[in-house]
């Protein structure tokens, strides 16, 4: 589904990523882990076109998307959530999800300004669909609330609903459990599995090891901008290099 080949990223003299190559298999949940500063978020930013890689290529379904802007990648089915939640704070919860339906609607300035009949029916359709996605993540009662006033946990759910509204092929989640308490994290695990069951491939960056080991089919470990290991959760848990990177070497 998503294939990264030889991804490298330099910021000035700093090498943030080097020689990252792995596949995210269709239908799987892939976890990307690593200590702070390993380059996980940088990798997501490259995958979603926030900035270009210095070297290497990003392939989605075999198509090289390395130079496409974010909005084009979104239309191809590559969508993400953000570590620090990037909601549209002054808009309502429902409107946030309706922005997620932007790619599935096409009314332009003229048909919107003149309220053409097809624009009105399109508006009704995406409103209904947005409500369905709010129900999917379990916050249907919040639709009229201003998104900026939501708690962190609810905001996270809204961000997932908004991303799912695009009906992505591949959903990248940047630390979805960050800032959540344990019961919220447990609900999140269920939600991510339900997303996978809808046929959406998921890749997530996460620090919560219990969550990663619980839901992921495959794990990629980064350390200091390079690939450290790749494998099933069991393989990773037994990998000596990974243990060393996380716990330090024995003296």
């Amino acid at each position, binding site marked *: 589904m998503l294939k990264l080949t030889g991804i490298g990223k330099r910021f000035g003299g700093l090498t943030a990523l080097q020689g990252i190559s792995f596949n995210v298999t269709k239908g799987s949940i892939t976890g990307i882990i690593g200590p702070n500063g390993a380059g996980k978020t940088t990798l997501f930013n490259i995958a979603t076109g*926030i900035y270009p890689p210095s070297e290497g290529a990003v392939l989605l379904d075999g198509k090289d998307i390395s130079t496409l802007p974010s909005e084009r990648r979104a239309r191809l089915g590559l969508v993400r959530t*953000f570590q620090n939640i990037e*909601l549209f704070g002054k808009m309502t919860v429902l409107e946030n999800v309706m922005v997620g339906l932007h790619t599935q609607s096409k009314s332009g300035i003229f048909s919107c300004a003149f309220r053409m009949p097809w624009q009105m029916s399109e508006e009704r359709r995406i409103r209904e669909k947005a409500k369905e996605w709010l129900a999917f993540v379990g916050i249907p009662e919040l639709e009229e609330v201003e998104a900026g006033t939501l708690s962190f946990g609810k905001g996270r759910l809204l961000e997932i609903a908004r991303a799912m509204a695009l009906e992505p092929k591949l959903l990248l989640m940047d630390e979805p459990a960050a800032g959540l308490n344990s019961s919220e994290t447990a609900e999140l695990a269920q939600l991510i599995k339900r997303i996978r069951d809808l046929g959406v491939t998921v890749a997530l960056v996460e620090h919560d090891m219990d969550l990663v080991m619980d839901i992921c089919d495959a794990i990629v470990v980064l350390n200091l901008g390079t690939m450290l290991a790749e494998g099933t959760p069991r393989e990773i848990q037994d990998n000596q290099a990974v243990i060393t990177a996380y716990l330090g070497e024995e003296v």
Partner: protein
Amino acid sequence: MKSDHIKFLVFALLVLLAPLPLAGGYLTNVLIFVGINGMLALGLNLLLGYAGQISLGQAAFFGLGAYGSGVLTTLYAMNPWLAMLLVAVCVSIFAFAIGFPVLRLKGHYLAMATLGVGIIVHIAFNETIELTGGPSGLSGIPNLTIGGFSFDSDLKNYYLVWGFALVAILLCLNLVNSRVGRGLRAIHDSEVAARVMGVNARLMKVQVFTLSAFISAIAGSLYCHVMTFISPSSFGFHFSVELLTMVVIGGLGSVYGSFLGAILLTLLPEMLRTFEDYDIIVYGLLLVSMTIYMPGGLVGLPALFRRLLPARGSQHA
């Protein structure tokens, strides 16, 4: 939805009745300019209040509309309505073309670039003397007519201008409560997130910039036919800043706020006449205190009162 319609009808009714007690006097004339300024502020508000992109060059599009119509109807004797449409389309194309490079910039740089556009256009009005008459202005612009009916009095022009203004309000209300409006507000709140959601931010910004230029050009054409005389001084940097003030004072991201701001800033200088030479000081003080104490603008007033009043109540209890 329903309450939006009622609001619009009430506003339209007020517009319809407002000139009746004035009996075509001087204030009717002032209200014409409220309508024109309101349209201009509305155009800028779409850009600044919704999409979050500043423009300090709105007076340029207004001026291009006014001079375009003025020159075509005097020197070339073109039908004024045709000229208005032609000029608005040409100004829109101009805005669309400069929009792509200019709107790549953000914040202060965008302000500088649009300021530059405004200044260049203003210089052009002054220097192309064969066409515009230069600093001494362009006179003898005909009033608009429909069939044999001529818009030759303040009252007639009032209804002409406000007819256009009401149409602009209605269309913009539709627009901001639609897919396009949501896209614009999304760009305003978080451009990165909007783009990741598939919103083509770059194109949308240029589109709304073009739309604001279109509205400004129409307002300019109306202005030249109402005034029958125009000179470059009406379309300078000063006026761009005044429009910006109207939008901020009226309420960013509010269609009606644009008009409230236009009403206040157009009427205020008239009402402050009683202060004679000190009017500019009172004017300045009012604007400064309103920006400090009413960050939501005039449209934010009801909400501000609601917030303040219960707080006082609980102190007494």
